[in-house]
């Protein structure tokens, strides 16, 4: 044990109020990205159901996104896009980069859920005289979305963790608040223990609410 240092609890307690806006910012980035990623994921999953060039494009996009790190996506959007004339605020950059990547993960999840549904669902829809688009919209997608709740919940925890990366492009959320507080004090370790606890609490709330949603939308058998 280093005799010169002790765990500085007072420091943490003094700076707890600083984390209020930071948590709000993290949640803002998180929810915006989650909604955008979910919409993108559903569209990509539908594109993969249709034979043709659109399916190929969606597959290539998904594999590219899944096999490259989020941090590089953030740098690409934040440093790369301005060079071709697209200048966005850090918040928009963060949301675009995170949701572009997580849309690919969610697309795979939703595609899996669509494939798990039995063929009869689709055929029953056709037999009722529904067009393929309406079968997708009213029969396949609602069931696929409900069945994918646990996996989407898991993925959203990973998205929450990825929001810590947007500190690298200067969005003042939990991570950047902790880093700047740690920089002007000797209590770095204390600071990161604090935000570790914050992230753990946020992830726990997220997985608890996923479990709740899962039970709420469960089949009544």
């Amino acid at each position, binding site marked *: 044990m280093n005799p010169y240092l002790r765990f500085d609890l007072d420091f943490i307690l003094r700076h707890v109020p600083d984390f209020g806006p930071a948590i709000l910012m993290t949640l803002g980035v998180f929810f915006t990205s989650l909604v955008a990623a979910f919409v993108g994921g559903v569209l990509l999953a539908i594109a993969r159901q249709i034979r043709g060039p659109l399916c190929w494009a969606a597959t290539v996009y998904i594999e590219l996104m899944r096999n490259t790190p989020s941090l590089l996506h953030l*740098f690409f959007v934040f440093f790369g896009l301005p*060079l071709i004339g697209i200048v966005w605020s850090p918040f928009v950059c963060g949301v675009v980069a995170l949701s572009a990547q997580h849309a690919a993960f969610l697309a795979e999840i939703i595609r899996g859920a669509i494939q798990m549904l039995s063929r009869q669902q689709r055929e029953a829809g056709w037999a009722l005289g529904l067009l393929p688009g309406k079968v997708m919209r009213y029969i396949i997608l609602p069931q696929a979305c409900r069945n994918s709740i646990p996996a989407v919940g898991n993925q959203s925890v990973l998205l929450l963790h990825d929001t810590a990366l947007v500190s690298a492009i200067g969005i003042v959320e939990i991570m950047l608040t902790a880093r700047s507080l740690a920089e002007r004090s000797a209590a770095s370790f204390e600071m990161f*223990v604090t935000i570790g606890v914050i*992230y*753990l609490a946020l992830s726990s709330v997220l997985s608890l609410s996923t479990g709740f949603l899962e039970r709420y939308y469960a089949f009544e058998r």
Partner: protein
Amino acid sequence: MEDFSAMLFHMGRAAQVTLALAMVCVVLSTVVGLILGIVGMLSGPIVSGLIRSIVYVFRGIPILVQIFLVYFGLPFFGILVNPYTVAALAISLHISAYVAEIVRGSIVSLPKIQNEGGLALGMMPAQVVLWITLPQALKAALPPYISLVPITIKATSLASIISIWELTLASKEVANQTLQAFEVFGVAFALYFIICFPFTWFGYHLEKKLTAYSH
């Protein structure tokens, strides 16, 4: 054009650092994760509860925060190590929690009859674990485990934040110097994709093969 080949060479070397770091992390996290997963299943309620809560905490905290926790935590307890060790340790700890979870999941999902069959044949409990439970469980765990490899490789990009010179940091540097961020990040994307995609593809392949047998 000479610029471009120099850039490629520079980033190729950075990709080697990424690969080396990822390899260390994969090996470390496999060993730690297997131990955590198997010991957690075999031991009594106290030890397995402890292991499960450790796994829960490691999975619930972002890797970036864990990197900083190790970075500042080890010196706090008087242990001084270089940043490479910090990154390798932090990433491995996070990934090993996933490995442990996969191992636990595949052991739990084995039908109970397997166990009882072994016991009925007169095997000792340890023999049942060694010859019946583990071979089947580890086989079932293989596809999700393989899909952790690209996740680990991608996680090493976070080491750039504690200024370890690997592919992400190198591409950021080169982009800043050449002002050709578009091309440079494009090359970095391609390199990461070339490193990660074989594992992703192998994971798909294995999963298809294993599910084809089981149904």
